[in-house]
């Protein structure tokens, strides 16, 4: 199944892209699973999305926990903790 990936702020700069369409490999069904899959690409992804990096995620524009399940067509965003206000 396909999902739309988005990256924001420092994470977007580190990865050098604001997002992509991605076909999820079988077995990747959650936000945490997707993060681990992306980290597995190595290079900038390993650095920017490693376990020690504090990241937040949103699914379909709602803040989502690592355990949130994904379905085809979802918009999944990863970003650093927010700093507005």
């Amino acid at each position, binding site marked *: 199944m396909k999902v739309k990936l988005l990256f*924001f702020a*420092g994470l977007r700069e580190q990865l050098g892209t604001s997002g992509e369409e991605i076909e999820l490999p079988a077995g990747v069904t959650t936000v945490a699973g997707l993060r681990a899959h992306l980290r597995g690409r190595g290079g900038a992804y390993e650095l920017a999305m490693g376990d020690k990096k*504090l990241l937040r995620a949103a699914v379909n524009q*709602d803040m989502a926990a690592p355990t949130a399940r994904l379905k085809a067509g979802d918009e999944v965003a990863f*970003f650093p*903790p*927010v700093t*507005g206000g």
Partner: protein
Amino acid sequence: MKISVQREDFDLGSEVRDLSKSTRIGAIASFVGVVREVAMSLEHYPGMTENSIRKIAEEAAARWKVMDCTVIHRYGDLEPNDQIVMVAVASAHRGDAFAACEFIMDYLKTQAPFWKKEHTPAGPRWVEARASDDQAAERWKFKPGAMKP
């Protein structure tokens, strides 16, 4: 209820005047956040930003007697002294207006998808989230209505 995410500046006085004219309103509390010391660029997540602020304002209206409310948050390039954000809450009494206004700001700081990049003399740097902001939002979870009159 008015929620706006915009590049342009805002005028607190006119926004307050534009709040509901219900004669049951007896108190309007407002807050303005201003850029301190360093110029910055504010990035946001179009679509999610407006939705998340609306949810926070609706949550405030569920907890306190909010009769109208306006939240404006700017994005783009901002200079020291520029206004960043404003919240204005109209209620029957000041207790609800103050509490709802503070609640909206505390939650906005940890839930609304904005990111500040400061342009320091040493170069640009992304502002790191502060634990104290999380704590400010967290206290409303454990003591809902603690600031009610």
